[in-house]
């Protein structure tokens, strides 16, 4: 298709800054009429920010937006809607006790004699639904229909408002594989009818099977826009994670000792009651870092939660220091020597309103020397806090300030100080450097290596492939809740891991490598 007059959306040089962060740095993006265009990038790469600028949730600091070749100042979502843009968010914005129709017409109800004309409304919804093969029952209540159906209601909502350009934010994240197939069919019938679709994702496989073109964003920068049939999944993976980014961490040869953690055939469900871990098996030894690589949403969160007693397992065995843990309980696990750096530090890792010294004892607040009997030993707690602040280089005016006054990197150091100071046998580090500055990243990486050399077992779960590659001694790739393969770090290449992360079997990968 020729460019120019055939563009539905054109974004030029979009820059969006947040305090201390450039979320989008001169990003260009174009959407042709009638195409499915994937916007690919890791979490935090700036995909959603870019689309929020287009939809008017955010206003770009710099750059121009053209819709149907007309320059538009998208100051708020109403402007976008009036120009035929519809957005389906990852988290649905529906009223559960309302019917499908009521949800769809909300704010734009057809009226007759000042009353809502439900007959016409239902008919309208039924017509649109049929036109695009959505098969939604207009009179059903949203709370009674499946997640896949709810998503269709969101799509219908956008179509009802006259959208020609649809933005779908990670539409497959909430769907079962069957629902994904149906969604793909719907998307195809939409483009057949002349609609254009932008579809935000970080799943490589979907890009290949669904989209016509793909734009890759990394760290807020545009990497490239390419036709999906001219690239391989492998190449896309490299574009997404950025192969030229190499963070070198100096480390000695690992000297692994006995097995500390052994996980066998582990099954667990996610919050949506779908199986997230499907027979995960691996083991971690003393003095080594086992990295778990994988694309987000393949069971990493559930794995850490099960291992720390925060989530129930369905099946499988967990052995810690040779003993089976039948009913993992957070407190017991901590006492037996597991430390955990949680992936969401503000949600689980720290209590923002608490002072530093209070945060530093979370999880061991009832043990000596921090407590004697029922009493807290505040003097000792503050003393220890000062020691940890010094030792872990936490930048703070004093131990008495609230944790929320620290920067992200220092909050993470706070967690690391607390968890390392427990002297664990096993350290589970989930996304230990997510969203923090370079200096802190370096510090944290060196600390993890230090713990390894100190004969601790470390399970590193990270979405940053570079981080996995530079820190791990062995790499396990997780895909759809299963470990695809475990490789020694010397044998692992980024291409290979990228393909495995996309779901390819390791034999295929090795074969492909030889050909290439």
């Amino acid at each position: 298709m020729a460019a120019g007059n055939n563009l539905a959306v054109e974004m030029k040089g979009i820059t969006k800054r947040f305090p201390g962060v450039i979320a989008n740095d001169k990003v260009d993006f174009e959407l042709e009429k009638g195409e499915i265009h994937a916007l690919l990038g890791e979490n935090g790469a700036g995909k959603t920010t870019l689309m929020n600028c287009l939809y008017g949730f955010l206003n770009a600091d710099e750059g121009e937006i053209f819709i149907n070749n007309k320059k538009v100042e998208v100051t708020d979502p109403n402007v976008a809607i009036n120009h035929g843009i519809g957005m389906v968010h990852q988290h649905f914005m529906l009223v559960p006790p309302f019917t499908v129709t009521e949800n769809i017409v909300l704010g734009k109800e057809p009226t007759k004699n000042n009353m809502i004309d439900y007959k016409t409304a239902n008919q309208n919804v039924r017509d649109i639904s049929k036109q695009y093969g959505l098969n939604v029952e207009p009179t059903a209540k949203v709370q009674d229909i499946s997640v896949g159906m709810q998503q269709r209601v969101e799509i219908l909502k956008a179509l009802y408002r006259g959208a020609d350009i649809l933005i779908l934010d990670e539409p497959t994240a909430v769907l079962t594989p069957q629902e994904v197939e149906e969604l793909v069919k719907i998307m195809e019938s939409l483009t057949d009818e002349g609609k254009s679709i932008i579809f935000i994702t970080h799943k490589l496989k979907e890009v290949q099977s669904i989209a016509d073109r793909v734009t890759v964003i990394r760290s807020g920068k545009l990497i490239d826009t390419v036709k999906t049939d001219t690239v391989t999944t492998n190449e896309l993976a490299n574009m997404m994670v950025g192969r030229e980014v190499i963070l070198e961490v100096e480390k000695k040869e690992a000297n692994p000792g006995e097995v500390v953690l052994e996980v066998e055939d582990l099954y667990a469900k996610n919050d949506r009651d779908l199986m997230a871990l499907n027979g995960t098996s691996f083991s971690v030894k003393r003095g080594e870092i086992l990295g778990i690589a994988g694309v987000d949403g393949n069971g990493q969160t559930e794995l850490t939660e099960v291992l720390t007693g925060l989530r129930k397992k369905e099946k499988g065995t967990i052995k810690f220091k040779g003993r089976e843990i039948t009913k993992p309980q957070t407190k017991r696990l901590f006492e037996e020597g597991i430390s955990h750096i949680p992936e969401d530090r503000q949600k689980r890792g720290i209590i923002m309103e608490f002072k530093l010294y209070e945060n530093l004892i979370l999880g061991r607040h009832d043990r000596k020397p921090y407590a004697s009997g029922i009493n807290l030993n505040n003097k000792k707690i503050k003393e220890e806090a000062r020691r940890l602040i010094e030792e872990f280089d936490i930048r703070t005016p004093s131990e008495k300030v609230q944790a929320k006054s620290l920067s992200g990197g220092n909050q993470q150091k706070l967690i690391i100080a607390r968890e390392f100071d427990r002297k664990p046998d096993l350290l589970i580090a989930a996304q230990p450097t997510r969203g923090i500055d370079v200096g802190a990243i370096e510090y944290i990486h060196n600390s993890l290596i230090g713990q390894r050399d100190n004969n601790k077992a470390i399970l590193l779960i990270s979405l940053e492939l570079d981080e996995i590659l530079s820190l791990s001694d062995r790499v396990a790739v997780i895909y759809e809740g299963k470990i695809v393969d475990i490789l020694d770090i010397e044998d692992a290449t980024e291409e290979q891991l990228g393909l495995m992360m996309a779901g390819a079997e390791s034999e295929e990968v090795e074969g492909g490598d030889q050909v290439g």
Partner: protein
Amino acid sequence: MKKWKGAIKLVDKDISEKKAKYLQKQNLVDFIVPIISIIAGLIVGAIFMLIIGAEPIKAYIVLWNSSFGSLRGFGEMLVNTVPLIFTGLAVAFGFKIGLFNIGGDGQFLVSYLAAAYIGYMFQLPMYIHLPFALVAGIIAGGIWGGIAGYLKAKLGIHEVITTIMFNYIALHLVGYFTSGPLKAEGPLPATPKIFDTAKLPRFVPTMRIHYGIFLALAVAVLIYYILWKTTFGYEVRATGQNPDAAQFGGINVARNMVLAMFISGALAGLAGSTQALGLEYRAYQPFGFVGYGFTGIAVALVGKGHPLGVVLGALLFGVLSRGAMMMQSMVGVPKEVIEIIQAIIIMFIASEYIFKYLARKWRERKGGVADAS
């Protein structure tokens, strides 16, 4: 060589110090907001008095004198204050674990009855009898609150619903017992009088103020101690601030919720017990809620959930309710005006956000740094 192109940069120099200073200012705001609110309440009250043709200055002098003009007045004001300290602490303690105990009135009533029952049923030496009656009240109120905590922790039923419902159950249960099975001989719908050994002594026989005030102050200190000096208090505060992080720290969130609601109920219950053992010496059939539980919410809000603040808040409301009666009888200002003042104070404190918003705008206009978090 170390390269990291993929990282998001966050500049952390200096920010934390600026933020810390800003947060210290916030603490000052916490202190100033209640005072501004009280002043605003008094001003609005004065406007109302002017509208109905009363003299606000005169009325406020009466308000002051009714509590601080005489020893008797002071004593009567403290009589009002005692139950409010307890119910205020009850609500504040609930807030600390993130629960809203609206059931103070129900917990008040069951303890009221339980303390009176022990007071007249047993004949024991005072050093056993009085503590026994108080403990019975604590347990009764504690169970009443604890049930709501249990239902919240195990079944996720919202504590606001259950505590309100338990208010009505308590009201009618106590009404039934005081007019039925536990009713004393004679025309009054009330239990028999308690023995002297169960009474909270008075300072002066001619005044109603009793040792309950010391008990209330001691309990406020105890609650402060529990919250900030014990591991349990740490867990309560952690759970209230961030249940996810608390759970991550191995804290048994469900158990703490039940226990905290037990304590909250017991605190409100102490208001009832001291009412029975210090003032009324029996349990009367309630005609409705006395309202100490609800006023306790206001007290806790005024006191910012801190035990010291609660004591001061209870004093304020003690003064206001004592003054309401005197203003009506001496300068003809309807006591409803005092209720308006109370409402305005609560409204202002509850809309603290507006103060903070205005303060921030003001700082921004001055060119300072806004809150970066």
